[in-house]
């Protein structure tokens, strides 16, 4: 099934929660409102015509100039071999989205990664701890305004250039 058809089906069910335009791409991008993302994912997975059984990737982009954080859900169907990319924009100050870890178990770690590095809160996740950075780390390193701390537990994060030694 091509992306336009998937988009049309999704809009039939969810109406204006699904944005009207679609960006044709290798992973065609469909915009969804934050409140409808979990519902769209569930519909896309459960509908046998679409059957997106794999959350291939979940990533986030910090659009500081627009004061937004975009979260992307790369979906893939092993049965139909079609793919689609759901995009959600949420406010940069307090990005919060419903979790998809109850829909695809891999969402657990992917959401923890997005939380760790970008500070996106996933409501209903249940175990939203840092995945890569230390547990007591302050800040989210992939945010554009992240400032690296001078030291961590007494370990300096600075080093003289080896050329100057």
């Amino acid at each position, binding site marked *: 099934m091509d992306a336009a058809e998937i988009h049309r089906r999704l809009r039939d069910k969810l109406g204006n929660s699904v944005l009207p335009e679609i960006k044709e791409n290798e992973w065609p991008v469909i915009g969804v409102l934050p409140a409808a993302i979990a519902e769209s994912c569930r519909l896309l997975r459960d509908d046998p015509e679409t059957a997106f059984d794999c959350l291939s990737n979940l990533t986030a982009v910090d659009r500081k100039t627009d004061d937004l954080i975009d979260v992307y859900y790369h979906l893939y169907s092993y049965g139909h071999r079609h793919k689609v990319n759901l995009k959600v924009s949420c406010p940069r100050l307090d990005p919060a989205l419903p979790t998809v870890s109850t829909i695809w178990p891999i969402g657990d770690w992917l959401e923890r990664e997005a939380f760790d590095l970008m500070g996106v809160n996933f409501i209903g996740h249940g175990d939203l701890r840092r995945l*890569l*950075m*230390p547990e007591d780390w302050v800040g989210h*390193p992939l945010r554009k305004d*992240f400032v*690296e701390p001078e030291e*961590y*537990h007494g*370990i*300096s*994060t*600075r*080093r003289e250039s*080896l050329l100057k030694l």
Partner: protein
Amino acid sequence: MSLINTLPETVVTSKVDDVLNWTRKSSVWYMLFGLACCAIEMMQTGGPRSDLDRFGAVPRATPRVSDLIIVSGTLTLKMALRTKLLYEQMPDPKYAISMGSCANCGGLFQLAYSVCDGVDKVIPVDVYVPGCPPRPEALTEGLLKLQDKIQQERWLVRAPESAAV
């Protein structure tokens, strides 16, 4: 022809420190501490072709019975604290080899937010092995350098009068 009962009685004189150091340097047990791609080269060094075992160095799985820690690979800040903890669990006298550019100074990743720029910020290092990653020959050379260092140590002989307090 047999050598049995044919040799004259022989006395070899040496310093006690030299004998002790010779025994110590001939059984440097190293703790497996592979962190990244350097670990592959460390495995090769311990493997049949390079065979670190012929110098008396055998891998151990626990710090409690290790004399040497070979830090091989990129040290993240999260791992740095654990490295220190493991090093402190090793019984004295203990030694550390920093293997590869990442463990030496952060290497390729020294500007990354999550990387500790060099293991010498956390634990004292005896031998630095450069390379990205170092070949097994280089790590073997590093162990031989460490053996030289162990052989030079003086634990039992009295310090020279001038150095005495």
